[in-house]
């Protein structure tokens, strides 16, 4: 590319003592322009023709995350709250004989419930008092039955 001075150069006469420097800068500029590789324009064309056609991704645009949109955030919050409310209502809903999760507790704390707990406790204590030896004997019986079963199986398999 060999250009010419524009019309302003005639008006803006470069001072004589600076002309050499101006020429040196011109040479540097020409050198920089010519230092691009010979197929530079073709490569530039290939790189930018997609943008011209409007078909390629034109710029590096950071994709906007759906969560970063305010209305999506609001919708997500509403959905979250609604979901939590639904789970809570199902969990606490009355079941069968009239109560949710807390119903058995309520029943037990009523007078009938207290009596049944007391009866269960007494029965449990009586079993413990009578049964230390019984429980040991039962365990021994279980153990011997286990070993004899095991033996009979291994004999059969042989």
């Amino acid at each position, binding site marked *: *590319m*060999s*250009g*010419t*001075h*524009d*019309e*302003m*150069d005639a008006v*803006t006469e*470069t*001072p004589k*003592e*600076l002309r*050499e*420097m*101006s*020429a*040196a*800068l*011109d040479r*540097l*500029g*020409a*050198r*920089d*322009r*010519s*230092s*691009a*590789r010979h197929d*530079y*324009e073709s*490569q*530039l*064309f290939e*790189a*930018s*023709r997609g*943008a*011209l*056609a*409007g078909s390629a991704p*034109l*710029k590096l645009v950071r994709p906007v995350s759906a969560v970063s949109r305010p209305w999506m955030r609001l919708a997500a919050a509403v959905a979250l709250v609604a979901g939590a409310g639904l789970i809570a209502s199902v969990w606490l809903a009355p079941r069968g004989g009239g109560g949710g999760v807390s119903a058995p507790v309520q029943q037990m704390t009523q007078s009938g419930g207290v009596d049944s707990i007391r009866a269960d406790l007494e029965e449990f204590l009586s079993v413990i008092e009578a049964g230390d030896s019984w429980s040991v004997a039962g365990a021994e019986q279980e153990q011997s039955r286990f070993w004899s079963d095991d033996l009979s199986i291994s004999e059969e398999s042989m």
Partner: protein
Amino acid sequence: MGDRSSNPGCVDPSALIRSASKGDESAWRGLLELYGRRVFAMAKSRCRRDDLAEEIAQSVFVTVATTLVQGGYTEQGKFEPWLFRVTMNRVRDEMRRIKRHAAPTDPHALAQSNGAEDEPERPEESDVRALREAMGELSEADRQVVELRHQGGLGFKEIAAILEEPLGTVLARHHRALRKLKERMEQGTAEVGKRVESKGDRR
């Protein structure tokens, strides 16, 4: 001398711009022929690397093509100022990014880091490097004028339009920059002369 004409091959840029805006590939190719190397030279003057300058130029022309096709370019008759403003901004952004990552972009610095500093240098390269270094010492405002004028090949009127400064200010800056560069180069030559003399004395 430099490419001061916005219309070097008697091609009408405004007709090319109009056609390129409609997706005409040959018109777009014509614009790249007109401005591609000038944009490249502007970028290279700062980053001093061919690959990076190419990358910046690509990015600039993709932006320009996009804007043209989408009808975003509305400043009729001011294509050059707009193109070079986009270029300057892109170069500035890239140089900031490089500074943040603190990677040496000066080939001389890279050569030093690779241990190639002892390699003999051609005299021409030394002059060019000295001139580039002297340019690096100019103020940002003065350097912009010098680069737009000599690398970008723009006339002073276009430079004034790009920088949004009065023409007189641009001319004064250019003269001041040339004077500083001349002083710096003379100073450098004197230093080199002294060094050569002192080496000769030692022998």
